[in-house]
Each structure stands twice: as structure tokens, then as C-alpha cells.
């Protein structure tokens, strides 16, 4: 029956077995092989492993095309990804055995380095795929991103309404915070988000403190420019105003927690995607370096 199967245990670890057989076979052949001189890419085993490695790279690159062939009936995406991960991992071994562990400052090693960067960025991708989905689910708590944004917009409206009943300065502070609230943006802002709501919260809190102890000395200098003291002493309006202030604080705090959640959501999604910006372009570079490597080997040999 149909069950959720991850890319690791797909089809009872089929591709883990395939890649283990491939790796072990390569190791055994490498140990058994007795080349003339140092083990290198020029021996018959070197050529064989090189061919296998190059074909593997081409096949791994084909994943990008298969992913976009939505009507393709060649396996499922899950099978392809499972194979992509396991066989891609075994490529590290095959490449080193192919070269006989020789490195240098040349085009051949450039191809190797690019390949390793691509593979290790893939490892990071696998790590994010394992780690972040559950975190994202918990953080979302069944809400959609749109519903979170809608709620924030609603809280903003409420906050403005409340601030309006309190004081023009508070209103201005809340408005500025709303105008400056930015959700999302570049990867860098996503990974190190700031929160404008904090400023508004701080200011409203300070304002409250100022209000609560008007007799306790003169207001701080910067605050006195921020909030001119208004007449809160007429009892009725003061009560209504403190009520509104409390509500305003609740609203801002709630908004703060929502923006936190949504920022976290975007951050996690960014982490699950960011590695692709290394993985995919460098794989294209790898293709170019690989072509140069193969060409130079045959041309200059």
C-alpha cells in the first residue's frame, strides 16, 4: 500500500545498494589493479573509472531536465532523487580512484574541486531537507503564509485605530513602524532579520512609563522630544486611554510574534533553497570543466 517513503529508504534502499556495489567494485578493482608506475587516470582502469564518472555526471545533470519533464513516465521523482543522492555520493570515491589521488594546479583538479563543491552543496541540501520541513510545519501551525500576512495587516489596522485614540505621537510611532515593516527581501536580510515592531513596542512602553509616573522627575531628554506630555489627568479619558494603550501593547506584541513566525518561515524556506544557487550553477561550471578536462587529456596526450 502507499506510504510516505523518504528518499533514503526509497524502494528498500535500492540505490544505496547500487551505489555501494559500485563503490566496492571500484575499490576492489583499484586495489587489485597493478598499473605501470603510480595509479593514474591514464591506465585502463583509470579510463574505465573516468568514463563511469563522466557518464554519472551527465546522468546526474539530467536530473534537472527530468524534474521538468512532468509528463515523463521514466521512474518517479522520488526514485530519481534517491538515486541522485546515493550515486552522486559515490562519485566522490570514483573520481579520486580515477585520478589515483593525484592533484595539482591544473584544469583536471579544477574539475575535481568543482565536483566536490557541487556534491557537498548537495549534502547541505539533503541536510536542510531532513531538518527543516518539520520545523517549518511547527512554526506555521496550520496557517498559510497568506493568512499570516492577512492577520498582520489586520493587526496593523487595529493598532493604528487604537493609537489614534491615545496620542498623535504614539500614532506616528505606530505608523512609522508599520511603514517600515518589511517581510522578506534578499537572502541576507532573510538570514539576519530585524524587526521594526520592536521599536514601536519600545516607544509605546516608554510612553506608558512616562505616563504612569509623570511626577517622577522630568522626562528623559530624547523622550521629551518624542512625546510631548499631554493632559492625562482628566480621569475618564485617562482610563479609556490606558485601556487603549494596553490593547495597543497586546496588538503590537501579537504582531511581533506573527512577524517572527513569518520571518522564520521565509528563512527556513530560503535555507531549503539557497544551496541550489551554488549547486546548480556550479554543476554547469563542472560540465564545462569536465569537457575541458576530457578534451585536454585526449588532445595533449
Amino acid at each position, binding site marked *: *500500500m*502507499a506510504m*510516505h517513503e523518504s528518499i533514503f529508504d526509497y524502494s528498500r534502499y535500492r540505490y544505496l545498494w547500487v551505489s555501494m556495489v559500485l563503490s566496492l567494485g571500484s575499490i576492489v578493482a583499484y586495489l587489485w589493479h597493478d598499473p605501470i608506475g603510480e595509479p593514474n587516470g591514464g591506465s585502463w582502469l583509470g579510463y574505465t573509472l573516468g568514463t563511469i564518472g563522466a557518464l554519472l555526471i551527465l546522468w546526474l545533470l539530467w536530473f534537472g*531536465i527530468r524534474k521538468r519533464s512532468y509528463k515523463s513516465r521514466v521512474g518517479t*521523482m*522520488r526514485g530519481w532523487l534517491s538515486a541522485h543522492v546515493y550515486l552522486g555520493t559515490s562519485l566522490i570515491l570514483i573520481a579520486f580512484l580515477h585520478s589515483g589521488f593525484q592533484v595539482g594546479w591544473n584544469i583536471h583538479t579544477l574539475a575535481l574541486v568543482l565536483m566536490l563543491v557541487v556534491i557537498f552543496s548537495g549534502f547541505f541540501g539533503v541536510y536542510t531537507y531532513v531538518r527543516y*520541513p518539520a520545523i*517549518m510545519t511547527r512554526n506555521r501551525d496550520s496557517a498559510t503564509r497568506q493568512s499570516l500576512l492577512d492577520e498582520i495587516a489586520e493587526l496593523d489596522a487595529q493598532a493604528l485605530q487604537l493609537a489614534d485614540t491615545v496620542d498623535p505621537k504614539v500614532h506616528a510611532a505606530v505608523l512609522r513602524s508599520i511603514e517600515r515593516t518589511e517581510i522578506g527581501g534578499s537572502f541576507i536580510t532573510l538570514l539576519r532579520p530585524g524587526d521594526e515592531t520592536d521599536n514601536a513596542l519600545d516607544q509605546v512602553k516608554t510612553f506608558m512609563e512616562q505616563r504612569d509616573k509623570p511626577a517622577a522627575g522630568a522626562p528623559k531628554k530624547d523622550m521629551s522630544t518624542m512625546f510631548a506630555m499631554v493632559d492625562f489627568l482628566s480621569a475618564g479619558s485617562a482610563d479609556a486611554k490606558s485601556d487603549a494603550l494596553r490593547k495597543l501593547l497586546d496588538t503590537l506584541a501579537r504582531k511581533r510574534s506573527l512577524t517572527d513566525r513569518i520571518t522564520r518561515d521565509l528563512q527556513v524556506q530560503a535555507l531549503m533553497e539557497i544551496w541550489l544557487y551554488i549547486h546548480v550553477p556550479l554543476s554547469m561550471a563542472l560540465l564545462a570543466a569536465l569537457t575541458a578536462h576530457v578534451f585536454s587529456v585526449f588532445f595533449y596526450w
Partner: protein
Amino acid sequence: MAERFQIAIVGSGPGGLSAAAHAAELGISHVLLEAEPHLSNTIYRYQKGKHVMDEPGILPLRSPLEFKAGTREAILGAWNDGVARLSVNVKHGHEVSKITAQPGGGFLVECANKAQMIADRVVLGIGLQGNIRKLGVPGEDLPIVQYTLDDPGAFSGETIVVVGAGDAAIENALALAKQNTVIVINRRDEFARAKEGNLRGILKAIEEGTIQCYYNTGPEKVEALNVGRKKGRLVLQTPQGRAQILIDRIIARLGASAPRGFVEGCGVKFPSKDPSAVPAISPQYESNVPGLYIVGALAGYPLIKQAMNQGYEVVEYILGRKVEPADEPLLRDRLKNVPNFRSVDAFIGDIQRNVPLLAQITPLQLREFLLDSEIHAPKPGATVFAKNDYTNTFFSIVEGEVEVVVDAAQNRRIKLKRGEFFGEMGLISGRRRAATVLAGPGAILIETPRRSMNRLIQSVEAVKREIDKVFIARALQSRFTPESPIERLNEVVESARIVQFKAGDIVFNEGDPGDCVHLIRRGSLTISRQIGGKDVVLSYVAAGNYVGEMALLGDSRRSATVRAAIASETIRVEGEAFKRLIQRDPILRARLQAEYSARTASNLAMQQMPAGGDIISFLIAQGAGEATDILLIDEALCVRCDNCEKACAETHGGTSRLDREAGPTFANVHVPTSCRHCEHPHCMKDCPPDAIHRAPNGEVYIADNCIGCGNCERNCPYGVIHLAAKPPKKPGLLSWLMFGAGPGPGEAPYDPKAGKSSEKKAVKCDMCKDLKGGPACVRACPTGAAIRIGPEEFRAYARNRS
């Protein structure tokens, strides 16, 4: 003295309009009575620019008025021109309130505006929409009072009073409140009729002060003002006394009065209380009241072209002429493969003689029935349908016989002969076919689609009774004693009756005395026990299975509580009769005991992991109880790449039919907004061209003859159907990759508007029935998060995840 006409036509919809036009064309004295100031109110109220289709395409049009697929404006324009050209005698603002047969023949037609007239014959073409209820106070017809709202965005900065407390009123009020001052007038003290979401919305708006609401308040009068800034004044009666509001506009959404009461008031009889029942009419469209004719949707013909043809024909019939019905050539064509075919009428005669079930219905209904149906004359031995197919058509045997393969392993077969029917199990339970049926010698079969059959069952009580009787006997036999003859079951069948449950109703409680067995015939049930004060769901039982046998076999009291997961029907068999059957039948006893111990073991296993029960409860709460195949996403695996949506869009003309993100999640099980292919699909309920079908593998899909009316979109409780236009074609993979031509695979079209035409059709998941290898969403999921499962797998699924 009231004016006298030969024909009075009530309602200017396609049927009435066509009848009036034909009468005018022939120069017969006639009158067309229309309540509204315009013609064809139902179509008039379509949104602007809506594309109206002309299904069924094969049916020729017979009417002096033009009709072909096009925009609402073009069609209404053509009709208005036609009515003017033929000088049809239309009387607008005449809402007919009463039609009485006169002793000397003819009818007295009375209108709400006190106008009266006498007509020899009356044609009712009032459709099913009903008349919009008006304010019922002076000024209700002023231009500032409107009863519909096409585009809330068209008004801004106005003071608008919305009268009404239903969903339409609330939706209008909320939409208008964005840029207007809105006041809601509610006659009662709460919004009792509103949907949950609307209720929350309006109460919140009232609390926040964006909408003002007067409860227990009714309008007294509306007046137009010539001076001042506001266009009018509304006087209200509030509990505190009289009040007045200066307003720009009143929008009254008070619903419509269903036409049935009025029609019954004219003496027309309906065959059953079911709201979908239509009055029985003769082949000449005459009702049980002589001289009173019914055409169009009210008579059960919801398509525009059908109604227009009937309007034409009814006038011909009234004049005593014989017209070959418009469907005659179609029927002839449909029947041409029948061996020894002579004429349509002769074949209809054969059916009425040979098939007792269909002898109950009128020849007109039978024609319609045949038009919807397929006639088969299969070779002996050919498969009519195979076991486990998901089809839900109904078969009647006109000639010859068929064989039902009861037990494929032992090749045991039952013969069904001329006049009998089969396929009722799939029709009623909405589940897979229970057995394979093979054609016998000389078989001529009528295969009727689900909708036509259901309409027949609802309209003709005798048909329903007969089918239920046979269903009970066959269902009990196939479930309990497939190896012995049906007569053995007589006592049990006698004691059995059909019981209906609403979702959440209790079938029986833990600890009740066990006095009966329930065989589920449609819907599904959950089995739960009280453990530590909490209701723990142990199991989920789908249609075709039984509950309650435990108490009859072992303990005498119920060991668990059984609830209906969705609206369900069971066959209730009396305990005593069932016990005697078990005693007589040792094979049955052994089998029941085996199933009993398997169930007890599985219940015990489930009891030990209550998390599994919670998952089942969660799935049931999401409506999975009526699903046949549901998309589930494991959110611990889902990397939110949306490849499922992209694959869906790419394989289905550019529009994704699933929304991955939306929908609830429990214990990392996410139920996205995606079709569940319900056992009894809500979308099929009211599809005028009958375009929604179920394929043999269970896929519910929309065929190309969709007219884009949006009924399915409204009827689907899961929001998985929407109307979409075909987007522009995308470039191939290589020309995108190499030359950057157009949007690439999985990307949204650059300019979605480029493909936007008014011709929108309903789209929904078809489980990729035309692609080999299964649904693209599941196949495209790179991490194995998305799967599709059927309800029979819920238990194993829940156990696996807990």
C-alpha cells in the same frame, strides 16, 4: 372583464420566450407575463460578459428566436430583437400569484399587481430560481433599491443599507464596507442562517464598527429625495421606535421564494417531497391539470436549448398539431444498432412491456431517459463491467440475459433475465462494482448514467421502492451468503429496513443491548471506545461492510460506539432473524467468527496507540470519510518545492488543480486542497449538461461539454474546483533553455491575461487518468511526501504513522 387570450405564458425564460415568440409568429392571441422589467431574468443576472454555451451541441434548435453560444449580452440582445420583430405581447412587472382553472374551461390568471386575465391554456416556464423577495414596503421599486449586486467595487463613498441576514446579504455588506458606509438591517436578533465564515466576518465587522447593524428592525418605507446630499431616506421600525436613515442606496438580499409552492398552488402534483423532484408531464408537456403545460427547468430540462425547443413544441401541441419531437432523429441514431429496430415508438413500447421498473414512468420521461442512456447489444460473453470498476451507471435488460460472476474462483454465476436490472450497488453505494457482469445471448441493455437514474429514483416513488427492495436482498446475499440461494435470506430480507444517519449521528452506543446488524450501503462509519474519558477512534468502516455482529456472536452488549462519519445509509437487519440465519448456515458462522476475531485483534492493536485513532479522527474531520482517493502530504518530508503543483499545471493545460499550502495539518499529516473523488461527488449534484463523470478507476472528471456555469464550484465543500480559461501555450523545454523563449516548465505564464477569455470552464483534478503511471503530483514529488490513498487504507496508514 378580464382580457382573454388563447395562451398565457408565465415566465420569459428560454422556454416561455420561445413559446411566446412562436405563438406571435403564428398570430395566436397570447400574453407573456414576466415579473421583472427585463426578459429572461436568470440569464440577465449572469455576470457581465459571461460566455453562455449551447449544449447539447447535437440537438438542433427549433425556435423563431436565435440562440448560439456567445456572451450573455449577445444572447439577450438577439432575444430582445426577436421579441420586438415578432411583436410578442410581453407584460413586464406582472408577477403571477395565482392560476385557477375555470369551471367553463380556461384559467383565471391573477397577478400580484392586481391584473387579471383569462387564458384557454397556460404554459408555465418559471424555472427554478423563484421570484426574488422584495422589501414589501412602499418604495420597494424605487431605482435606489436594488435586489442584486454584481460588482461591489462599483460603489464608493456611499451610505448603503443592506437588508437581510443571509449569506448573500452578509457577503455584500462585507464587500461594500471596504469603501462605503454600510448599515445592515436584520429583522431578527441574530444571523441564524449564515455560514460559519460569514457569521464570524459580520460579527467582527459589527464589533469593530466598520458595519453598523440594526437588529429586530424592519423597513417601513423608502422615499426618494430630490434635495440634500443623499438620494433617499429609509424609515425603519426598531424596537426603540421609528428611525430614519439618509441613504444613497438600499441593497435587499431577502432570498427568493421557491417556485414549488406556487406550482402546487396551481394544482400540479409533485411525485415526492424531494427538492429535486419534478412534476410529471405528458409527452405533450401537459401537467396533471389539463390545459396547464410546463416547460424548461421546472419540468426537469435545465439546458437553454432544450427549453427553447419545448417552448416551440408546446405551442404546436396546444394547436393540436403533431410534431416529431426534436430528439427523434437523435433517438433513432442512438437506437440504430439495436437488432430488429423498427421505430423509436416501438422500442419504447418494448421497454414498457418488458422492463417493469421502467413501465412506471411516462413516455416523455422515457425518451429523456433513453437520450441520456446508451443502448448496448453486446456479443455473448462480452464484459459489461468488471469487478472493482468504479463506474456508477445503471443497467436495465430489455431483451436476452446477462450473467453475474458471483465467485470467479469457482466460476459460479447467476443469470439475470429480461426485465431485470443490475448495477444498482455501484449507483447507490458509490463504491467499486461488486462483481463482473458478462453479456448472455441476445442481450439488449440500457446503460443509464447516474444523474438520470437518480433523478428517476427521486421523481418516481415506485422506482425507488423497487430498486431498494432488490438492493437489500442482493446486498445481504453478496455480503453474507454468496454460496447459498437468495431464498435462504427471505426472513432476514423481510426484517431489513433502510436507516439514514446524518454525519456524526450515533448508530449505537457502547453498552447498548445488541439487537441488530447494520450493513452500510452508502457513506461510512467510525468505531470508537471511551478510554480514560476520551473518545478513541479504533476503526473506520466503509460502505459495503457491516457493523454490530460482535454483540450477536459473543457478548450481548455493544463493545464500542459506532458513528456516521458522513451522511450514511445502512440496511438494518433484526438481530433475532440474523441469529437464526447464523444457526442455519455454518459457513456464514465460521466466516463471521473469523472476521470477528480479526477485528477484535485490530481494535486492540489500535487501542494501544491512540495516536493512530487521532489521525483517523483528523482525516474524518477533513471529510476524508467520503473520499475514495485523497492526497496526503507528510510535512516532515515536504520541502515546499511546489513541484506537485507545477506538475499538475504542466499536465493540465497550465492550471494547477491542487493547492499544496492550503488545508489543515495534524501530526505532520497535511491534507492539501485537492479533490478527494468523493463516493457521491457533490460536484455532480447539479451539473446542467451532466459533464461530470466517474471513470472506471474512480476518477471524477469534468468532460469537455462543461458550460462553465460554476454550480460544481459552489457545490464542492472542499473548494477544489474553479473556473479557468485556457492559458497561452508554452515554448518547448529546449527553446526555453537555449533561447529563453517564454515561461519555462513549471513557471507561471508571463502574462496570465494573454490567455484570458470569457470562455471559462470548470477544472478539477482528474487523477491524471489519461497519463500512464498515476497522478503527476505524486510522481513529481522528489521527497516522497505526497501520496494518494483510499479510505480502505486509512487504518493501516494511521497505524503506520503512530
